[in-house]
């Protein structure tokens, strides 16, 4: 007997991602994707420090193991849930669904999800987020968007980190910006340094605008 299935392998993930999206209909949800050491946790710390007095922020930390990142974020005084994937190299929608049960979602304005450090598979898994944001530190090299195009193709914003190190690297900022804008014209491009504070205001004000838009939409809807 031949059974035609025509079923997407990631359909189950997609279905749960849609459920997550419904639960998060009032909360701007951002999925941060970048290599290990790109500066995801540091960007989160700086973002939270700058937004927490005006907005209620929740964080989901994805790591293969340890609670080191969650401890850093908890130090900022916001609600954080750590997911340990125990070997898996990405977060998926069902892990997020479980984490959402641990978070008090009422009154939350912003949910920041830090994905497992990896530029490849996190891009394949919809978590129910509004936006994917790709991080790239200048020490990783300017060839990364060409080598890992999916994440840069799907991201709504791209954050260059560690810009204070630019003088010490051969990172071609202009070429990367042109490449990203050509391949993904809708992407917002931010050049930041957590050390000097450069670019963080622009990044945070983009998040604020996005939060406002989301609330506006859900008020209408």
């Amino acid at each position, binding site marked *: 007997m031949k059974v*035609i299935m025509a079923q997407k392998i990631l359909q189950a993930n997609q279905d749960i991602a849609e459920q997550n999206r419904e639960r998060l209909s009032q909360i701007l949800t951002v999925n941060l994707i970048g290599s290990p050491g790109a500066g995801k946790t540091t960007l989160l710390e700086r973002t939270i420090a700058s937004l927490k007095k005006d907005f209620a922020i929740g964080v989901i930390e994805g790591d293969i193991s340890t609670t080191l990142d969650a401890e850093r974020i908890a130090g900022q005084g916001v609600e954080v849930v750590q997911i340990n994937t125990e070997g898996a190299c990405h977060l998926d929608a069902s892990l997020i669904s479980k984490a959402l049960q641990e978070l008090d979602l009422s009154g939350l304005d912003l949910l920041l999800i830090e994905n497992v450090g990896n530029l490849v598979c996190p891009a394949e898994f919809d978590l129910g987020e509004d936006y994917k944001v790709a991080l790239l530190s200048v020490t990783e090299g300017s060839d990364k968007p060409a080598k890992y195009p999916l994440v840069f193709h799907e991201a709504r914003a791209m954050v260059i980190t560690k810009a204070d190190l630019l003088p010490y690297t051969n990172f071609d900022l202009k070429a990367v910006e042109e490449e990203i804008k050509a391949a993904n014209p809708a992407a917002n491009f931010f050049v930041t340094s957590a050390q000097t504070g450069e670019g963080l205001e622009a990044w945070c004000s983009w998040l604020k605008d996005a939060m406002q838009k989301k609330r506006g939409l859900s008020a209408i809807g």
Partner: protein
Amino acid sequence: MHELALTAELLKLLERNAQEKGIKRIRKVKLVIGAMTSVLPSALEFSFYALKEGPLFDEAQLEIEERPGRGHCQDCQAEVVLDNWCIMCPSCGSRRVAIDQGRELYIDFYEGE
């Protein structure tokens, strides 16, 4: 590495479907994998034979159809053959290429009784 997670999902989907249909043994599974997914067919194949267990999958063989990437340029409308995620129009050099084919990742059919 995520091929293992995908394969676990694939086996779950097959198991559920076979249960519904009353199928006790699966002989062949046919998958379609597009060139523009970050899924390596060889790694998925390895995971399939490593993870499958029990009478339902004892004799199951995997067949993979690799679907090439195709798109069209949104600036000059040229048809573009896409390979390895190098998304660029060969006629005009534009990076604004819409992907029409190659993002597929699905179970086409399986055979069993």
